[in-house]
């Protein structure tokens, strides 16, 4: 059994690339390393199994969509929507990511070292043991957690000022939780979102995530563990009850 398989993705379309990845997984590879990745979309989409995929380069949109189990480690930035509707597994991004990171994610974990674009965690959801987690080391742009229905988004704000300058945090949120280090102004809260201080049990909940994050990227967790955080949740059990249905 071959333990590690390397694939040179230079100039390769995503279809043969994904076929090669699936063939490697089928042959029992535990680790697959992709070199010269440049914009290929849909890498590891729908992939199942216990395999680590190291991606050197810039993967295209929808990395790990519907993925169930594998770990993707990206040495580079990601384009739009890594972890789109991901089922389980882990994505670790040593860089930035584009818009709609973790779009509709339903399980597993995503760790981004730096910043993400607009609408991070849009429509994340959860059900029973499935609870997706998105951890961002830097900051996020506007409409973070838009229409969020479940799961957890943790923004560590390592660079400072973000995201207190962006609007629509948790716009349309009706489930799940967004936890943000630093300051959040009421003005930037989205419709249906409310802000509270971090409770002690929530601090205990995020501590292992922070340690996991700093472990991936070789950082010191200490300054992140005891700092001030805000928690964004839906403003009520059903903040939009009267929006779509008439109830007496």
């Amino acid at each position, binding site marked *: 059994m071959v333990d590690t398989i390397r694939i040179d993705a230079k100039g390769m379309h995503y279809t043969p690339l994904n076929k090669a990845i699936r063939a490697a997984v089928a042959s029992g590879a535990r680790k697959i390393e992709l070199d010269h990745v*440049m914009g290929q979309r849909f890498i590891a989409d729908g992939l199942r199994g216990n395999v680590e995929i190291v991606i050197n380069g810039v993967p295209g949109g929808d990395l790990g969509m519907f993925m169930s189990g594998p770990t993707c480690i990206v040495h580079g930035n990601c384009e739009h929507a890594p972890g789109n509707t991901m089922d389980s597994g882990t994505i670790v991004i040593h860089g*930035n990511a*584009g818009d709609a990171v973790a779009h509709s994610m339903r399980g597993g974990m995503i760790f981004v070292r730096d*910043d993400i*674009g607009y609408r991070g965690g849009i429509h994340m959801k959860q059900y029973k043991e499935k609870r997706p987690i998105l951890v961002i080391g830097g900051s996020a*742009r506007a*409409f973070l957690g838009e229409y969020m229905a479940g799961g957890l988004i943790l923004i560590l704000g390592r660079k400072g000022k973000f995201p207190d300058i962006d609007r629509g945090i948790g716009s349309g949120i009706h489930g799940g939780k967004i936890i943000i280090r630093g300051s959040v102004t009421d003005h930037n809260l989205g419709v249906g979102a409310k802000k509270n201080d971090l409770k002690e049990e929530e601090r205990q909940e995020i501590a292992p995530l922070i340690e996991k994050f700093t472990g991936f990227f070789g950082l010191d967790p200490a300054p992140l563990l005891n700092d001030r955080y805000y928690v964004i949740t839906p403003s009520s059990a059903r903040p939009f009850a009267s929006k779509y249905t008439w109830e007496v």
Partner: protein
Amino acid sequence: MCGIIGVIDRTRQCMDGTGIRAALSQMDERGSGEGAGYAVYGAFPDFKDYYAVHVFFDNLHETKPLVEEELSKWGIIEHQEAIPTYDQPNIRKVHFPWRFFFKPDSHLMPWSTTPADDIVTHLVMKINSSIPGALVYASGKNVAVFKASGWPEDVADFYRIQDYKGYLWLGHNRYPTNTPGWWGGAHPFNLLHWSVVHNGEITSYGTNRRYIESYGYRCSMYTDTEVVAYLFDLLIRRHGLSIETAVKALAPPFWDEIDQMPERDKEIMRAIRLTYGSALMNGPFAIVVANHDSMVGFTDRIKLRPLVSGELGNRLYISSEEAAIRTMEPDVGEIIMPKAGEPVIGRVRG
């Protein structure tokens, strides 16, 4: 979904079309093979003082004499030629691309402060609205536009864009949604010095079109992007706005954001929104616009389409995807995502 890319060299060092062809082909997934195109500034050094009037003719024998007649009323045709094309298996040559190098007689429009530009604009609108079978799709000085229905690499090879050099290139890969794909609907859209590539939809097209037509522009290309070129010409060339102010008019901050601005900014922004309410562009879009001296990229106010930029040395790149920029320039520095509605601008020096 469409793919867009632009590059400007601030010292006017020229690049051939090889790099942008590779970058745009990298984004084939963003298109449908029904339209692609390129614009290049600095393409005609031998005729740089003449307006390069590009025309798609349905046939040459019937309509070309009519276009020549219109042009000759307002100036002289210094030179004209068929735009060289090279047959590609995936491109059906349904139009004959032609270019005239034209010099308008400025004395014929004495009431204008920019008579040459106004004569050419008048001719573009007149030919496009009154001569069936002729479509003027570019009209700037020293600017070449190459577009057709096809994939980016096929359109590039059809015109052999590697044979052209310029200091500013735009590229576009089209995925037509609201109107059919046709040669005139491919991007870039050009009027005079302005070239536009656009990903998204201008849902305010009806309002914008009525507004722009009240200033004498005529929309003839069955697609929303056309108004963007005309709006830039109106706001910047004719009204004298800066690029920054024009972008603020087209993609303004929300009223609640304006309310939080310092008093002076608030007053200016309110005036812009009230004056240019009908120029405001709604809907999802990412746009790159160029003229001879600059290139600007911006998105709609809530960022419904992707746009990133990067720099290396004297060159600024703007594109839908980072991978496209890296395909053209592997050593590009940090990739930046401009804020929604805020322009990223590259200007030539001096």
